[in-house]
């Protein structure tokens, strides 16, 4: 059923949903293309965000159908906690603590645990995910602007001196 040639599913940041469904979104058509013909994965945190929104009974049935059609990554584990600590560290080094919410950090952490590509339309979440080594190529954020930020982030992350050790 699976093949080595099949791409890994996009780990879906919930914000993509609103960009696809809003009629006034300039990215609806393009993100529709990005998620077509490729599986989506839902983190524990993304699923919780979706389920916690207000839905009618009919909508909730459809939501359940959508959730069950995605690869669900399950509840967080010890490995997720370790990735969260790493994300928190990167976020601090890039001084993005106030711009990347804890919810985003958990979502990125579980995406990193499974080494999935992240599909997000949040610039700072994309920066942190990229800084931890994730594939963020699905985003439709401004590429040239992102590239400048990525280079800036790389300079910060690779110039940090190793802290001195006390023996």
């Amino acid at each position: 059923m699976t093949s080595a040639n099949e791409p890994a599913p996009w780990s879906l940041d919930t914000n993509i949903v609103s960009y696809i469904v809003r009629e006034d979104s300039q990215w609806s058509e393009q993100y529709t293309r990005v998620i077509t013909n490729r599986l989506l994965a839902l983190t524990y945190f993304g699923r919780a965000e979706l389920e916690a929104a207000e839905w009618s009974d009919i909508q909730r049935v459809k939501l359940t159908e959508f959730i069950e059609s995605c690869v669900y990554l399950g509840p967080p584990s010890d490995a997720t906690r370790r990735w969260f600590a790493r994300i928190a560290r990167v976020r601090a080094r890039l001084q993005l603590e106030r711009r990347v919410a804890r919810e985003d950090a958990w979502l990125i952490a579980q995406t990193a645990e499974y080494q999935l590509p992240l599909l997000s339309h949040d610039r700072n979440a994309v920066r942190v995910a990229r800084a931890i080594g994730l594939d963020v190529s699905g985003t439709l954020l401004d590429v040239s602007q992102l590239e400048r930020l990525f280079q800036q982030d790389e300079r910060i992350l690779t110039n940090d001196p190793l802290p001195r050790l006390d023996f």
Partner: protein
Amino acid sequence: MARQTSQPWVIFIFHGADGESVGARAVGQFLLDLTAAARHIAADLLGQPGPQGPLSLQERSLVEYTLVYSGPGSTLKIELAPPRPEYALQTSLAIDGQRSSQLTPDVVMRELRDDLASGGNGRSATRRSRAIDELRASMRRIAPQAGIDCADGSRRRVVTIPLQLSLPADHEAGPVRRRVLFGRAMMADAQPDQRRLRVTMYDGSSLLLEVPNDLAVSLRDAFDRDVEVRIRTVVATGHSTVESLRLLEPAEIGVDVPDKDWQTLMQEQGLDPSNPPDYPSMLKSLFDTNDDAVAFANYLREVRGTYDVGE
């Protein structure tokens, strides 16, 4: 399942350039990389996310060989003797399932030969391919050209002429890919003109990396420590260099791979990657009006508290 042990079972052949003799200094590292690659292949064939922890008895039966070194000379041969019969028997008893029942050292080595001969595509998409990349780099360090001769379980040679692998010389030109690794930093070797670092990741795989001189001080502090390593890899050659090292905080240290990888979850959940659902239609049917969609966007802004699309 018993085998004769007098005949070499797998032979790696390293051809020296321009008649120069091939040294055996790098053989130890090569064998470590060979073991790592074989473990990854075995895990892959067993449907496991990857090898973890020390070698299990089951894995040992698949990857432990007796080394016979032939040389020196312009050609260096490393002959691997067949696995001991008792290991082969334990292998067949220890592994359950139809797929697993066919998993023998022969299968693993044939896969390894095929992986090496495929030449790689410059994209280390899986842990297995990363391990193969590392083995290929290790072979390249021994000699610019290398071959592998492999016999199957019935002792017939499946490749009678050493298969020449085209291994491009290292250079720094071309597209570069950056990666971040987490693991234990180990000393590989240190010479005046070259420092190398082995990073053993928490899934058991490892990578040998060249470290530039300006990181030498950091390198000394990092040995035997858990580190974050930022590396740049030349896509065309697979040649990797360390860009930075950072010691990990205690909360960051430990096994960081899930119990089940996403492929396993996908199969368990009955999802078929070759026939993905029509997600756009499903999502659009969730919202009756655009106002509903706007309300959902506002809800997300509230629960996230922050949002930045760069405009």
